[in-house]
Structures are given as structure tokens and as C-alpha cells.
């Protein structure tokens, strides 16, 4: 027999869950209905794909998808290369000034790229990367957070493996690639999930540095599409929103456990 508090827990937890997911479910439902049906809660009204058709024709979504995909890929590759090299230096190489430089890197955790938009815009323009996908991605590549994560991961590699590889005649770079990188695979996966979902969703910086269809990511495209000046129907905005969140949302629902683990691994320092 269940006690009263257990029943109360069940009801409370479920109620909060329903409230929390309701906006998403409602928008999903509305995306498949006409605006008048949606706002009047006509639960039995027919489902339609019209909103998706209109939304799809209203903006170059395929291009935006490609741009976002390119953007998260470019950032991820850049981050992997740069944070691997720097993380390895901090974890396994002895050199003077290391601690001081490491503190400088940690300082960047609090100098948010978001806050430095004005000067970062000037830098990106000065090096000729304005309105390029590389320009959107480059400020995030030397991520202090990533360097820290890689350093922690490389530090836990047993020194015996390092020595064994050295005796086998491996070069420094070879040791890094053949010993450290494979052992840090879970960290790479976690970091990749966090990085991809962060940059898939990023908005302010891409808004500032992109100025054309060829570079604009989904979030910026979506905000322009839904701008009140365009007078787009709210059901159509819903359809466009559903389209743009679908890939990440589906990936999340399939790999939920890994996602949660990734955020945890990345968050707990």
C-alpha cells in the first residue's frame, strides 16, 4: 500500500512535468492546425501540414540548416584541435610560466564572449572574417572550458602508458595521438554534445557577425522569419520553430542518457 506522501509525490512530480512540457506540446500541436483552431483549442479539429508548407516556402531553411551544420562542425573541429594541444601542454608538459598561463586561461571562463560583442566584432572585421561562418565560430574555438576539461582528462592517464609508448619510440605527438586522445574518448563525446547543442542554439553573436543568407544560422533565420514586422501567422511560426528544433530535439530524445551525462561531466569541475 502506498502512503499518502508517496501519492502526493507522484501527483506533484507529474503535475510539474506536465506544466513544464506543456508549452512544447502545445506548440507542436498548434503547428499542425490552423491558427483559429489552435487558439480556440479545437481539440478535434483536423490536422494539417499547411503551416509547414507555408513556413518552408517563406525562408531558405535548407540553407540555414546547412549553415548551422557547418558552423557547429567548424567550431567542434577547431575546439578539438586547440583544446587537445593546450590541454596536453597543461597536463603533461613541464615548462616555466605554466601556472601563470593556466590562470590566464581560467580567467577567460568569466570573460564571456557574449559580453565582448563590440570589440570582438571589430576584431573579426579587421581580420576579414565578417559575414563568414569561420567568423561566427572563431571566437569560441580556444574555449577555456574545453582546455580545462581536456587537461583534467589527460591528467588521469597513467604515466606508465606514456612511458611505455616512449620506450616503443613514439614521438611526443605520437604519444598524444595514440595514447592520450583514445583514452579521453568519453570526454570528447561529452564535450562534443555540449558544444554542438550550445552553438546550435547560439543567437546574439551570429546575429551580429552574419549579414547574408549564405552565413546566417537557423536561430537568426528563425528570428527574422518570426519578426512581427513580417506579420506571420502564429501557427506558421510554430511550424518553423518545430522544424528548426527538430534535429536537435530528436537527437536528444534518442541519446537522452548520453546528453545528461555529458552535461554533468562538463559541469562538475
Amino acid at each position, binding site marked *: 500500500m502506498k502512503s499518502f506522501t508517496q501519492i502526493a509525490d507522484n501527483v506533484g512530480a507529474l503535475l510539474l512535468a506536465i506544466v513544464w512540457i506543456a508549452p512544447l506540446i502545445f506548440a507542436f500541436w498548434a503547428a499542425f492546425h490552423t491558427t483559429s483552431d489552435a*487558439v480556440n483549442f479545437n481539440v478535434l479539429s483536423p490536422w494539417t501540414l499547411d503551416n509547414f508548407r507555408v513556413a518552408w516556402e517563406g525562408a531558405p531553411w535548407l540553407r540555414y540548416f546547412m549553415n548551422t551544420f557547418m558552423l557547429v562542425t567548424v567550431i567542434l573541429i577547431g575546439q578539438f584541435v586547440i583544446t587537445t594541444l593546450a590541454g596536453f601542454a597543461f597536463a603533461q608538459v613541464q615548462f616555466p610560466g605554466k601556472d601563470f598561463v593556466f590562470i590566464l586561461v581560467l580567467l577567460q571562463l568569466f570573460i*564571456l564572449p557574449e559580453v565582448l560583442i*563590440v570589440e570582438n566584432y571589430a576584431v573579426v572585421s579587421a581580420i576579414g572574417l565578417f559575414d563568414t561562418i569561420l567568423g561566427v565560430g572563431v571566437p569560441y574555438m580556444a574555449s577555456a572550458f574545453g582546455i580545462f576539461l581536456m587537461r583534467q582528462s589527460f591528467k588521469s592517464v597513467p604515466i606508465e602508458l606514456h612511458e611505455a609508448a616512449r620506450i616503443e619510440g613514439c614521438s611526443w605527438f605520437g604519444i598524444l595521438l595514440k595514447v592520450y586522445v583514445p583514452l579521453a574518448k568519453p570526454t570528447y563525446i561529452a564535450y562534443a554534445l555540449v558544444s554542438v547543442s550550445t552553438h546550435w542554439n547560439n543567437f546574439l553573436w551570429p546575429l551580429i557577425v552574419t549579414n547574408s543568407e549564405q552565413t546566417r544560422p537557423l536561430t537568426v533565420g528563425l528570428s527574422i522569419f518570426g519578426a512581427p514586422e513580417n506579420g506571420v501567422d502564429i501557427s506558421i511560426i510554430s511550424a518553423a520553430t518545430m522544424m528548426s*528544433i527538430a534535429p536537435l530535439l530528436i537527437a536528444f530524445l534518442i541519446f537522452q542518457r548520453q546528453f545528461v551525462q555529458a552535461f554533468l561531466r562538463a559541469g562538475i569541475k
Partner: protein
Amino acid sequence: MVKKMNKHQSDERRRQSLYGWMLLTPAAILLSLFAFYPSIATFWSSLFSRGTRRRPAEFVGLENYTDLFNDPTFWLVVKNNLMYAGITIPVSIFFALSMALWANSKISARGFVRTAYFTPTVLPMIAAANLWLFFYTPDLGVLDQIGSLFGLSSVNWLGNPDTALWAIIIVTIWKEAGFFMIFYLAALQTIPTDYKEAADIEGASRFTYLRRIVLPLLMPTTLFIVVNAMINSVKLIDHLFILTKGGPSDASKLILYYIWEMAFAFFDAPHAAALTVLVLVVLGIAAAIQFLYLDKRTHYQ
């Protein structure tokens, strides 16, 4: 022999430091370009007037800062952001903790419950704002529909200075509570079940157990979340672009949005720079809190 050994060692040391710096070069260049140089440049340009074609920028000292302090909009935006932080931080933490306690207890449909709590976290803020438009639009919006059932008149949630910031706050809480839940959930799973059993034997009520045992054990997690939530209260402003654009009459404008607006809508980079410097100082204080806390944590271990 010893001499040779020393020479070998110092060669090895020299080689290591060469490798070290080589490995760091790409990161050092990018960090300098996109963190350190911009921080210094921001401070520097906050000391100059806005240059025009006719009149080049000139050194004005702290004038941009005094301008800000004399600007009523600045104080309104600061007040808005303090309220934004002051409400989103504790409320998100409250929800996050409740969610974690529930998601960690033996309830039915736990998988669904966890997913429901966490899903808003993976959505872009822009998409979240679009979803919430449905709730806030006057007459059509879901909130108004529910209100009309109870005979309440239509409220323009986003168009009314009294409610606009609240509408923004609710979206932020909805978005970040599930994220913070994850950290509480992880911390809860490290609490040994013996404690609960001991508390039960002692006849302690659930509330006492929570207040005396669980909450103190969660304290480090809470501090970590507070620092992150503080950073978020500066950073999470994307939904302003969709929902209110800072209006009506600046009632929902937040600092980062104001920086963007000054720099990219009014082309007033010097004042935007001065405001950025102030934000960096506040973030620096957040950093200091976290470092102090990290110090303490190593003490106790």
C-alpha cells in the same frame, strides 16, 4: 658523469618548454584575439568620445561613465537586471531542487518526468520565445483564454510595462531550471542511503531530514549553480529580441541587450564599451566568489 647528467636534464627541460609553448600557441593566439585584447580594447575605447567623420574621437577620461550614471535608462536597465537575477536565480533553484528530489525518488513514470523537466534546456532561447508567444499574445494567447474562462479581461502581457519583465523572467526560469536539476540530481545520488535510514530510525520527519541533512550536503552544488545562474542572468537575453525588444518604454530591457542596442542600433560604441567594462567588473566579482569557494572546498577535503 654528473655534469653530463645535468646537461642532459637541462636539455630535456629546454625541449619540454619549447614543446609546451608550441602546443599552447594556437590557443594563446585565439585567446588573446578574442578575450584579452578585446577586454583591454573595451576599457581603452570607453575612455574616448565617439568619433565622427569630421571630429575624430578624443580622450575624455571617465566622461562616458558619468554619462551612464546620469542616464535614467541606465539605472532602469540595471534595476531590471537586478530584478531579473533576483527572481530567476532563487526560483530556478527552487524548481531545480524540487525536480531533482522528485526525479530521484521512487515515483511512477520517472522517465517521462525527467525528460519533461530537462527538455526545455536543449531548445534555443529563440525557439523557446516563439513557443511562449502563444501564451502571451493578447486575446489569442493561451493565458488570456484561460483567464477569460474565469471572466478576467484580456491582458497584453508583453505590451504592458508592469508585466513585460515578468513574462521574460518566466521564460528564463522555464529554460534553466531543468539544467540546474541535473547538477542536483548528480549530487543527490552521492548521498549514502544510510543517512535516510538513520533519520527514519531516529523518527525524523521528511522535512527535518531534508533541512538538516540533504540541504547542507547539497550546499557546494547550490553555490556552483548560483554562480552559473548569475552568469546566465547576464547572458540569457535572446528571448528579448522575440518577445519585447526591451520594451515597452524600456520596462524589460536588460544590460546585455542595452549594450547590443547602443553599439549596433545607435552606433554608440564608447558608451557600450563603458557599460561592458562595468559588466566585466561584476563578472570578475562572480569569479572571485567561485575561486574563494573552490579554496574552501579543498580545505574541507
